[in-house]
């Protein structure tokens, strides 16, 4: 009897790790090294007007969502209606980083589906995407008024994630006016 106790404890311990691993959720989601750090500096032309540029200081002074999207990204299409909803409710300023995309197609996408972004940066060669540690669109960063990244979400946004992960992190509740 006694001889089975230790192996049992060992197996139980491994099971705990297994369950923890399974509950972890999206196995592709990695802890972002940017949380609590200043948003990476960048300067890019905007998607719609190449002469106008957009950069980190554009977000300053308010909470901002920075949403990495592309027309080739299927899940971006899935989350698009919710971004439009957020924009219509004036929940938070939303900026886009159009990542490795074609300008023409990206503008057509916004014309067809609606444009939730105050502006989108056009990152044609993915250089800024690398600085932001982007590895799978859609990705959404929450930047606080001081310009610090306070949360990053991998995958499409939805109302539940928005309430649980984003609203909860904004002091004063952010929206819900």
């Amino acid at each position, binding site marked *: 009897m*006694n*001889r089975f106790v230790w192996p049992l404890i060992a197996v139980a311990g491994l099971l705990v790790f297994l369950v923890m691993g399974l509950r972890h959720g999206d196995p*592709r989601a*990695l*802890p*972002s*090294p940017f949380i609590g750090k200043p948003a990476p500096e960048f300067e890019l032309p905007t998607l719609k007007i190449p002469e106008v540029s957009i950069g980190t200081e554009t977000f300053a002074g308010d909470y901002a969502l920075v949403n990495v999207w592309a027309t080739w990204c299927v899940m971006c299409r899935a989350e698009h209606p919710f971004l439009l909803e957020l924009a219509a409710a004036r929940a938070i300023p939303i900026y886009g980083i159009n990542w*490795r995309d074609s300008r023409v197609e990206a503008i057509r996408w916004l014309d067809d589906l609606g444009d939730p972004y105050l502006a989108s940066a056009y990152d044609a*060669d*993915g*250089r800024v*995407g*690398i*600085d*932001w*540690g*982007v*590895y*799978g669109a859609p990705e959404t960063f929450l930047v606080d008024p001081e310009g610090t990244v306070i949360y990053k979400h991998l995958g499409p946004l939805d109302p539940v994630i928005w309430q649980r992960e984003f609203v909860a992190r904004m002091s004063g509740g952010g929206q819900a006016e």
Partner: protein
Amino acid sequence: MKRLLVLIVTTLLVSTAFAIDKGKKFDDPELQARYERLISEVRCLQCQNQSIKDSNVTLAADLRREIARMIEEGQTDDQIAEFLVVRYGEFALYRPRTTGKTLVLWVAPFLLVLFGGFALMRVVKHRMSLPIGDDSMKEG
């Protein structure tokens, strides 16, 4: 029949061509070797079980381009690793660096072997102290 055989054999001889950046980046063979070693040690974040050397997704291509640029600029391996870790975390490196955070990865195997050896020794000693002929497994 013979033609069919030839067809089968030649088909079997064909190997898949993975056309991923086979072109040389550097004229200097030393730099080229360094470049190839580095890209084989960086995880492709979009396709997490491949290195960026083996992957043809866009992000892997971007990272290869960045690494080539950094080598050209004369950055050290540590600087390049730092560039990646700052952006993607320690997970991006297939060969984790020995830092406080990753120390457990490097030390744990040795601790486990030590622990296992110790346990084995105890069991063997115990067995040896049993009277000869008593090979029953009643007590462990």
